[in-house]
């Protein structure tokens, strides 16, 4: 056996000083040689613990083996067998807490860079394999019709699976493009929109119809889809799109955004190309982003790229408790974003034009652990201090938009507004012929967990439709 190589191959990235001023992708991906070198680090251990770490059970050792053997079409086939959106997952999945966390080599050195390899194979396939060679043969139509509400990862994967099983699928999407958070939330420099649209086209190529500009609950209700429009089943994948605010004074000042609004303007409406694209966004010279998750990092890095001189991340706990992916927090710091930890806003300060000009903050300290097991941040009395800012982005999380629950009698919801499913393995709700999955069920989570939920529900919908 070859000697164990404990160091992973670095993936080239844009220089921090350069990338802080553009929206091009930060991580550049492996070259074919680098990919092969990294793939050959895999020792093909018999236990294959990485598979258990993958929420959709990709046969990871198998695709890596094909890569080492130089058989990229086979690697792509193995990946796509389990994951319809590998180019996306390879970029945004938190591999460090999933497949890579359980990698055998990880016990001694750096785990295999599974995410980077996945990305490489998916990109190679998109560039090198003509679309028709990827086309799947669909089974004969069953004559059953399924409506999917929402076109985020949950909805897209549910739609793709249901269509591949021979059912007629229509996706209803409220926005003017399909993709959900992948389009409006995650920025271009982390997930190029052309990649998301290529995946959407793949789903369409399976015969799935996508109706944009269609707000279910307003244009038609779930019950109308089932009872008047002739759908046999409905899958709800509407995500968790309602932004939370802090309810502190000054939150409605001009220049105070929810992360959803800021990111939607920048990513979905392409405000970074204003005025060619006509939707504006306030750039700001000094920007404070409140929160410590991926959404906060994305907002901060967008603000920097739009031209802010100074961008702060304001987080009430310490770096250790930050929910953002470590890699993204590091990227942000490298680019020059300053983390103000153990800090929490008390109020936002405005001028006579209602524009935010500053923020009064508390210093925090960590107390006893709370329900989440993390130490609870508590206010240090008398620690107030001011920061000058002209744009604030509140990235404190989101909950499901109440529209679907309010217009779908018979659904069960929790006090956080999430929809209750009777069994996670099927995604069935308590309402007859209605399934749900993704962030609408779990609250804000991950792309891969939403996809997994969509796939599981699709299998159960199929079983139901076949009686």
């Amino acid at each position, binding site marked *: 056996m070859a000697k164990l190589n404990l160091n992973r191959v670095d993936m080239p990235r844009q220089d921090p000083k350069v990338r802080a001023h553009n929206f091009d992708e930060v991580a550049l991906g492996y070259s074919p040689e680098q990919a092969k070198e990294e793939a050959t680090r895999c020792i093909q251990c018999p236990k294959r613990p990485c598979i258990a770490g993958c929420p959709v059970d990709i046969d990871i050792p198998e695709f890596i083996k094909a890569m080492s053997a130089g058989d990229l079409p086979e690697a792509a086939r193995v990946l796509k067998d389990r994951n319809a959106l590998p180019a996306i997952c390879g970029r945004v999945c938190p591999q460090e807490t999933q497949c890579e966390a359980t990698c055998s080599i990880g016990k001694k050195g750096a785990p295999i860079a599974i995410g980077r390899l996945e990305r490489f194979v998916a990109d190679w396939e998109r560039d090198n394999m003509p679309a028709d060679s990827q086309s799947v043969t669909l089974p004969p139509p069953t004559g059953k019709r399924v409506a999917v509400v929402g076109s985020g990862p949950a909805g897209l994967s549910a739609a793709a699976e249901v269509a591949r099983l021979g059912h007629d699928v229509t996706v209803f999407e*409220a926005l*003017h493009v399909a993709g959900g958070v992948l389009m409006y939330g995650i920025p271009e420099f982390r997930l190029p929109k052309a990649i998301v649209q290529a995946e959407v086209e793949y789903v369409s190529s399976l015969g799935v119809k996508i109706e944009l*500009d269609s707000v279910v609950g307003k244009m038609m209700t779930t019950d109308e889809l089932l009872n008047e429009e002739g759908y046999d089943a409905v899958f709800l994948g509407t995500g968790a799109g309602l932004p939370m605010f802090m309810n502190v004074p000054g939150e409605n000042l*001009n220049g105070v955004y929810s992360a*959803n*609004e800021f990111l939607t303007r920048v990513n979905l409406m392409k405000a970074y190309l204003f*005025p060619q694209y006509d939707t504006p966004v306030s750039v700001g010279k000094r920007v404070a982003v409140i929160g410590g998750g991926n959404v906060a990092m994305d907002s901060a890095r967008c603000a920097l790229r739009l031209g802010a001189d100074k961008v702060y991340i304001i987080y009430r706990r310490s770096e250790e408790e930050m929910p953002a992916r470590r890699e993204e927090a590091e990227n942000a710091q490298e680019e020059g974003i300053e983390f103000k930890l153990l800090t929490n806003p008390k109020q936002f300060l405005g001028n006579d034009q209602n524009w935010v000009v500053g923020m009064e903050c508390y210093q925090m300290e960590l107390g006893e652990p709370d329900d989440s097991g993390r130490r609870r941040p508590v206010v240090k009395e008398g620690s107030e201090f001011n920061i000058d800012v002209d744009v604030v982005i509140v990235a404190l999380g989101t909950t499901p*938009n109440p*529209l679907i629950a309010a217009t779908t009698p018979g659904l069960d919801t929790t006090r956080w507004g999430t929809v209750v499913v009777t069994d996670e393995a099927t995604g069935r709700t308590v309402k007859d012929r209605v399934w749900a999955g993704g962030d609408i069920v779990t609250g804000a989570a991950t792309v891969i967990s939403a996809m997994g939920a969509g796939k599981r529900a699709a299998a159960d919908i199929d079983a139901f439709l076949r009686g």
Partner: protein
Amino acid sequence: MYKILQKQDLVPHVHLFKIDAPRVAQKVQPGQFIVLRIDEEGERIPLTVAGWDREEGSVTVVVMEVGTTTHRLGMLSTGDTITDFVGPLGVPTHIDNYGTVVCVAGGFAIAVIRPIARALKAAGNRVISIMGARSKDLLFWEEELRQASSELIINTDDGSYGRHGLVTEPLKELLEQGGIDRVIAIGPSIMMKFCAKTSEPFGVNTGVSLNPIMVDGTGMCGCCRVSVNGVTKFACVDGPDFDGHQVDWDLLLARQRSYLDEEKLSFDQWRAKHGV
């Protein structure tokens, strides 16, 4: 793609568009709005519905030119298409038999108050409509609004037609005479603010249709935050109708001015390009 079935210039800088949108037409109610986008590079803008034909599958909006998007719309013609037309959005205006209702409309809102006045009248109300504009040449739909109402009062700021003065004057007189059970005011924010201020001392409930800047119009961004009775609301899903006596008008007016510099830049560039 949504087709413009009919474009009509009502008065200078105010245009009517009848759009082919069967799904929206099926569901829309008075007081709701739509969000449209002209093309890939365009902004999403909200417009209140001015009419619909469920059989034909069409929805009518009336647009006043103020900036880039509304001017770009003004250059479109019958037969052209726009990429997006989403709706119906927002909560419909609450229609009930209140007794006597005064409907006040300023500028382009003459068009959007018509379906509301008509529904109120059909619900058994005596509807007194007041329509106002800066001058005679900006007034439209006099006959249409007269038919939708029990009585019609016309005002122009410069006295070139109807009564001379602001719409708040006849409103105040009616309130002083008594017997008014409800006021509904739609138009520019400043006009709605002063209608609400006028009716407040009389304790007559006054509904207004707020028009903060919006992006999605579905409750996803919070751009449309307004403060009503000290509580933050998302106008696109909690409204756009609110109790005018409880609205923080100064906040609304200030937030509407969030992008003045950017809007000017965009409009100047558009004008330069089109030699307007």
